[in-house]
């Protein structure tokens, strides 16, 4: 369940630099259009809702093979 993009809720890029994947501690890639934080190693996309990164594996979207290869 992805929230529509809302410019008013853009997350501070400096804050995003602090965040890592809670499962692998690996880097996250910010997808600003989808408002997701992508952990390729965990194959998960963590949603950002109303400007709040949701760093829970249960709430994350499983990445498709096609997305990992892109």
């Amino acid at each position, binding site marked *: 369940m992805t929230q529509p993009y809302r410019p008013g809720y853009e997350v501070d890029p400096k*804050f995003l630099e*602090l965040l890592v994947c809670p499962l692998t501690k690996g880097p996250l890639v910010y997808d600003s259009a989808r408002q997701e934080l992508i952990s390729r190693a965990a194959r998960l996309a963590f949603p950002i809702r109303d400007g*709040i990164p949701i760093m829970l594996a249960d709430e994350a979207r499983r990445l498709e093979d096609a997305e990992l290869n892109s």
Partner: protein
Amino acid sequence: MSSAASSTAASGSIEDLVARQFGPQAAAYVTSAVHASGADLEALGALLAGHGTARLLDLGCGGGHVSFTAAPHVSEVVAYDLSDAMLAAVSGEAARRGFTNITTAQGVAEALPFEDAAFDFVVSRYSAHHWRDLAAGLRHARRVLKPGGRAVFMDVTAPENPLLDTFLQTVEMLRDPSHVRDYRPSEWVRRAEEAGFLVEGVTDRRLRLEFESWVKRIATPPVHAAAIRSLQDGASDEVREHFALEADGTFTLDTLTLVLVPA
């Protein structure tokens, strides 16, 4: 839907239970006088004074009172909690108070989504007794703390005496089924040291909890509140004295502030 039905419905993980318990009560924790003030928060403010460039993690921020205490002193505050409702309440209150240096993220204490050595301070108040794994939470706190940084843990503690300990945990569980454990001071120190901390300071305090607001804040079902009163009525003199039981169910318990540095 009655609060009794929602609070006694059984299902899901302890994290689900915590989120379900605290979600509807978020506003009550922002305004709770027990949570919003206290000598421990004043001491925290004094500890943070003069650290204007520091970044601080409020671990298990709940109603955000550590964040609001810290925000005037430090550069950046990250308010982190399992409950999205709590985080929304904290964001709203931060905006109302004009704090622009508080950001929020949602997750569990046992898997912090932050880089190693990301924070000058990690502060956690009245949260650890809800964690499924205190040792893991402490290891993560240690990991995200900078060398030379400080961690401050504040929580309700259980007495070292097993009789008093069991009474407290039972009452806590009846009040809030998402309760895990109030740890004894000796358990706190041992686990902190095992996680790679040195104990720099220990402060014991007592906290008086007015019964009606204490159960109302978390919407304790009446049947559970009645069970707590029944346990209190039948308590031994030792229990009565330690917890300073009062006629209306109000009682006083122990709290601890642990100031830790990386070992």
